[in-house]
């Protein structure tokens, strides 16, 4: 770069170089003649003038071509309130409501406001991208061309040749989409693309691509999947095993069936459970402590209905026997996965009841929520109600009755129940199932979504209701006071007068505390609450004692996600 002679002179210093560099501007030249100033200062004056000339004389560039603009979208943007909600969901991590919100905007024939497009294009999860895609419109696709990370939103070509090109040249996300679309057009050809490049793919990509083979899965894919079982990456192996389990004629399923026969046997009307031999290739890890994992993996790969038939038992009878074993958690987990995969409603119903009603000494309740939610998804609507009618120990009402109380409906005897909450039934079912499985419930969401209403609107208490209470994080009570109150809610002691007679907890027939605005509670109280829920005890360091929680103590808490940073939720 050619350096301005003036800058050159100043950089070197007037002590070393002459003080009269050639200057292109008469005004700057004139500064060099400024009276009553040293030569060095005069040079600086000239630099100041040049700076001004640079600014004033700046010319716009006229060499920029005008690219084609985005086409107009005939759809109107969604309303500002909807836009504000979408923006909040997109920028927060609590995006459980996002798919439904996006669907509704699409169903209303609207699009996202343009200002939200960068956020919307930034979503990462495949199921969210599927919901975002129809809302983008021409503007969104136009914008997607401006950033490599938005490439997933570009139109996927529809011919096999174009797809093959996208597969060969695209970014990981584009290639995934190309493979997906290729599988739909011609599963065999798309598989051959993958086989060709398999050796050069990175482990994470291999795992993603194996997952895509779910599209158009057929016995023709078995040889490839069987080879993938030898992959170095555990993620690839488990992905392949999951797909092979869905091919009933595969040798993988045959191997698993043989293992199941060895693992589960009937002897004298008792279920005897043997540890399956480790086989890392088929996803059965080595190690004595991983016995449960192996059991679950074997059972997940075979049909539970077939197993019951082999043993000559009904689903209920087999589960009843399983309850008497020490492996109930692993058995239920394996069968649950299989029932969900096969969409077996009968087994789903029986397993739901098992997870809900089994004693927490025999079953690992920390697994229950996830499986119960999945099982509920398999059940048709009328059977879902049946599943929820299994009453957990210590509950006075069945979860179904609580759901009906909240959502409204007609009882078998014709009594109309008015809805107390209008919204997603699935959400309430999950909430109740959470409480039914002894896990604390946190209702977290944007303000104005009836969280506190739901938490306080359980059926009215009956006379036999044990103590319960409500704390409110917004009350600026000191930590000791809140901890004291927790102690009373958790223990069996008399209720201090300050606890509001809460309307909660009747269905559970046990102490159930309600906490509003969890995030505004000081961190030490949150910690106490967590200890209470996980250890079932409440240490009182001031007195050097521990209070045992009453059996089945639980908490319904509400918090809103705008409060971040006030008292962020403890890591757990």
């Amino acid at each position, binding site marked *: 770069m050619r350096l301005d002679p003036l800058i050159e002179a100043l950089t070197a*210093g007037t*002590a070393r170089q002459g003080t009269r560099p050639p200057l292109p501007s008469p005004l700057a030249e004139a500064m060099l003649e400024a009276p009553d100033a040293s030569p060095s200062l005069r040079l600086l004056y000239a630099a100041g003038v040049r*700076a001004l000339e640079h600014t004033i004389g700046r010319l716009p560039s006229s060499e*920029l071509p*005008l690219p084609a603009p985005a086409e107009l979208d005939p759809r109107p943007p969604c309303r500002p309130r909807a836009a504000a909600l979408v923006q909040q969901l997109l920028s927060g991590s609590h995006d459980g409501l996002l798919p439904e919100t996006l669907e509704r905007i699409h169903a209303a024939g609207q699009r996202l406001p343009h200002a939200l497009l960068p956020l919307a294009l930034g979503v990462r999860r495949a199921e969210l991208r599927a919901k975002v895609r129809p809302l983008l419109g021409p503007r969104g696709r136009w914008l997607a061309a401006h950033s490599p990370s938005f490439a997933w939103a570009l139109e996927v070509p529809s011919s096999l040749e174009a797809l093959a090109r996208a597969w060969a040249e695209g970014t990981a996300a584009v290639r995934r989409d190309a493979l997906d679309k290729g599988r739909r057009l011609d599963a065999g050809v798309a598989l051959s693309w993958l086989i060709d490049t398999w050796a050069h793919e990175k482990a994470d990509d291999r795992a993603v691509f194996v997952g895509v083979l779910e599209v158009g899965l057929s016995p023709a894919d078995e040889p490839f999947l069987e080879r993938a079982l030898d992959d170095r990456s555990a993620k690839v192996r488990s992905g392949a095993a999951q797909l092979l389990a869905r091919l009933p004629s595969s040798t993988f399923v045959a191997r698993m069936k043989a293992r199941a026969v060895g693992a589960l046997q009937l002897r004298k009307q008792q279920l005897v459970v043997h540890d399956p031999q480790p086989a890392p290739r088929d996803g059965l890890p080595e190690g004595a402590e991983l016995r449960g994992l192996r059991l679950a993996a074997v059972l997940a790969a075979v049909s539970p209905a077939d197993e019951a038939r082999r043993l000559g038992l009904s689903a209920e009878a087999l589960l009843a026997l399983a309850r008497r074993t020490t492996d109930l958690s692993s058995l239920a987990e394996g069968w649950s996965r299989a029932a969900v995969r096969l969409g077996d409603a009968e087994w789903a119903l029986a397993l739901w009841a098992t997870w809900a009603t089994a004693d927490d000494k025999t079953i690992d309740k920390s697994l229950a929520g996830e499986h119960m939610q999945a099982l509920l998804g398999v059940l048709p609507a009328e059977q879902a109600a049946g599943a929820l009618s299994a009453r957990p120990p210590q509950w006075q009402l069945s979860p179904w009755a609580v759901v009906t109380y909240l959502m409204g409906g007609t009882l078998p005897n014709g009594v109309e129940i008015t809805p107390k909450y209008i919204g997603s039934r699935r959400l309430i079912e999950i909430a109740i199932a959470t409480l039914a499985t002894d896990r604390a419930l946190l209702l977290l969401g944007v303000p104005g979504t009836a969280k506190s209403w739901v938490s306080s609107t359980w059926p009215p208490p009956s006379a036999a209701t044990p103590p319960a209470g409500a704390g409110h994080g917004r009350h600026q009570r000191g930590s000791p006071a809140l901890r004291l109150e927790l102690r009373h809610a958790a223990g069996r002691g008399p209720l201090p007068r300050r606890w509001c007679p809460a309307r909660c907890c009747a269905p559970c027939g046990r102490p159930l505390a309600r906490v509003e605005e969890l995030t505004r509670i000081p961190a030490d109280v949150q910690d106490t609450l967590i200890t209470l829920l996980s250890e079932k005890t409440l240490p009182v360091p001031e007195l050097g004692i521990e209070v045992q929680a009453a059996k089945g103590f639980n908490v319904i808490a509400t918090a809103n996600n705008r409060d971040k940073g006030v008292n962020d939720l403890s890591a757990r």
Partner: protein
Amino acid sequence: MSLPEAQVRALAPDTASLEAAERHARPTAWRNLGHDPRALWGEVQGRAPYQVRADLTDLSTKCSCPSRKLPCKHALGLLLVRARHAAAVPARGAPAWVEEWLERRAAQKRRSEARAASGPDLVGRVRRAVARERRVDAGVEALEQWLDDVARTGLASLAVDGAASCVAQAARLADAQAPGLASRVRRVGEAIGVGTDWPEHVAHELGRLALLARAWRRRAALDEPLVTELSQLLGFSVTEATVRELGVRATDQWCVVGQRIDEDERLKSARTWLWGRHSERCALVLEFALPTARFTEPFAVGTSFEGELCWYPGAVARRALATARSGEPAAMLEPWRGHTSLATMLDAHAALLARQPWLERMLALVDQVVPVRGPDGRLWARDTAGQALPLELAEPLGLLAVSGGHPVSLACEWDGARLHPLGAWAEGAYQALGAAE
């Protein structure tokens, strides 16, 4: 002398004090109640025994309790006792602690009357102003000496210890009560060694500083508005009262075009750009607050309000105060009329610089520009004539999304090299852009 209860109630700082005072409004709560023609007094048992006195001439009170409310609940109680049960407060000689207080008040009053009679301390004010100007002059002289040194030894030597030298020089200027110059020198120090073209940048900045120092030295020969401007650049502050007294005023519908907030550990500052829809005048409102505090003037970008602004005196009226507002701010519904091309915007900027060559940023409203991605990956604003200036934007996709390759009305800060977008009119609404820089 009778004391109406309503008058006592009117003294209360808040209703809570009045409620609390009710407990002390019974004569039985008091000991040693008494009054004379000047004052009223008594002792009351609060958390400790408190001595309460009230001057009957102006109802000012004094209590020995630690409350910060004035009057406190005890004083209110005493006045209420007097209002309701005048007979319970006998006339008697004032005890020593009341006498003392009354004398102190009388002495204070005499002093303030004497001061009021002699008029404002003009002599003292002029003397202080002259002393400050002398200190600033000395600071400017030292700055010129330093600039001379820097130019003589060369900018290349700045790369070694230039940053420290700038910090030291800035501190000297701050001591010389020229904070405006101090912050300019500090910024030069921060630019040393940054980027490949820093010598040019630093040379230009030092050149401007040298011109500023020279202009100040020669201020006697300059127009008064420019001298006013210079003194603000050097760091002489202008009080709001002066602005209200001397500033030019205009009433209009003011559009809040953009706001930028800078924060460091000691202070946060907000600069808010306003645009008069009818007068087509621009105003910059600067506000300063502690990092934890809020700014006092609520300006929501994208709204407009009816009101009056008052500009700081100077050669280019730019910085202003909002002196009056009427009605609630409302969302802007239609765009303003901006420059139709970048060329006219640049001309307007040049005209401003001709009047005040040290201006750093100005508001640039340009209509019908298309944000376009250049071959360098940077975003440019291209006008209908096909001319383009570079945009500086932390998150360019936001502007691309709202424009979509179509022309928009853009509001920017123009710093002489790049446009810093503040917002754009798109989809029939004003969208604020790039809050963080």
